[in-house]
């Protein structure tokens, strides 16, 4: 009969041997040490990570997520993927610079059947952006200012436009409420290089695509048309907003020239 203490000792020894084996086994997988300074707080801070407790620092939506996007590719994609058949042929669509009625007519002028409302789910938005070769990653919790059912409590996904071409940086960030409902979608675009009409058209296409991807099917064209019509004429430090098919849209251009679009549910 084995003494229980002997068994315990053997078990402890076993675990010690296992830990040593585990250390040796994991060492065999390593062929490059991490450089010095990898844990410096300043390095972590530059990643949005906070030193100390290891938790991820909540970021304000839209900070620090941009990448190159191809103007031509985006224009084509915006036309082919986002804009439904029958939509206007391009950015020359008549701008809507004043507040629009809640239920706007469809771009073709035909009455809209059952006006769709709301924003799509994070998974749906992400899937479509991935189809457009966006690089998406999970978002982070946000510190909300005002608690409430419509408050954005987390960025559910952050998608950066493809980096292979184009005179602009662009990113899309989806915001969810505590219940998991998408309540806000932001799209940011910065022109890289000269601020030309072509570059502004490319920005318009990217933002229009973001608006269309965010909205429920049937509302996409209306939202995209509004964006396409408003972006090219937007001057520095200007903004405009409207409500279409039950969704709020805010479009602005910062003094630095960056464009920002917000598509959101109306406040409760």
């Amino acid at each position, binding site marked *: 009969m084995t003494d229980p203490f002997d068994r315990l000792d053997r078990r402890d020894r076993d675990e010690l041997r296992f830990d040593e*084996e585990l250390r040796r086994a994991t060492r065999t997988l*390593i062929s490059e040490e991490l450089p010095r300074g990898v844990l410096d707080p300043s390095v972590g801070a530059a*990643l949005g990570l906070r030193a100390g407790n290891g938790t991820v620092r909540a970021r304000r939506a839209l900070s620090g997520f941009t990448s190159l996007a191809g103007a031509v590719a985006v224009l084509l994609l915006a036309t082919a993927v986002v804009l439904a058949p029958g939509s206007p042929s391009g950015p020359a669509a008549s701008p809507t610079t004043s507040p629009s009625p809640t239920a706007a007519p469809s771009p073709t002028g035909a009455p809209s059947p059952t006006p769709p409302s709301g924003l799509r789910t994070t998974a749906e938005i992400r899937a479509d952006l991935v189809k457009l070769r966006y690089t998406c990653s999970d978002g982070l919790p946000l510190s909300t200012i005002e608690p409430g059912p419509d408050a954005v409590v987390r960025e559910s996904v952050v998608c950066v436009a493809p980096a292979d071409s184009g005179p602009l940086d662009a990113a899309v960030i989806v915001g969810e409420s505590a219940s998991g409902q998408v309540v806000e979608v932001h799209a940011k675009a910065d022109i890289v290089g000269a601020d030309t009409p072509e570059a502004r058209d490319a920005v318009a296409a990217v933002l229009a695509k973001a608006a269309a991807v965010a909205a429920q099917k049937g509302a996409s064209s209306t939202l995209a048309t509004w964006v396409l019509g408003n972006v090219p004429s937007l001057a520095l430090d200007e903004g405009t907003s409207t409500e279409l098919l039950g969704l709020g849209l805010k479009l602005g251009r910062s003094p630095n020239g960056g464009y920002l679009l917000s598509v959101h549910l109306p406040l409760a």
Partner: protein
Amino acid sequence: MRRQVWWVEAIEPALRPISGREDVDLDSAFASARPRLVRIAASLVGHDAAEDVVQDTYLTARARLGQLRDPSALEAWLARICVHRSFRIRRRGRRLQELLAVVPFARSTPAASGRVELHELVENLPPRDRAVVVLQHGYGYTLAEVAELVGISHANARQISSRTRARLLQQWREAEA
């Protein structure tokens, strides 16, 4: 409704330009660091996913270059991003694993060789678990440091580490028996 700029101004501090830094040549630095980053990623998530991780590292670095305060810390910063992205590559890996689950592989299994090697068990861990175990036991970081590196709470890191160690220990004992 023009000149409605209040909301733009409210978020403008968060929208400061993040590209166009002239004091850092990211592309050159990245090209030089790339082989090392691939090796770091390979140790954490395996060779198959390492390239994906390094690609993500470049995209993240490019997008956040403006947030790098000390240009001399560029290499450490890239390595930090690489570790962070290694831990976050789980979702993509899981989808791939789901797809690959139906494919009958003729890979050499521990049973085929007659004896399980612990490093094989580690290599077969899900990427998140593997990253934590390799950082802790291989690189020798404390759990607090591991948590810091991958951007999770200390409690979460401890949970992953403890759960993974227990699983490995059980498999190891079964193989030893």
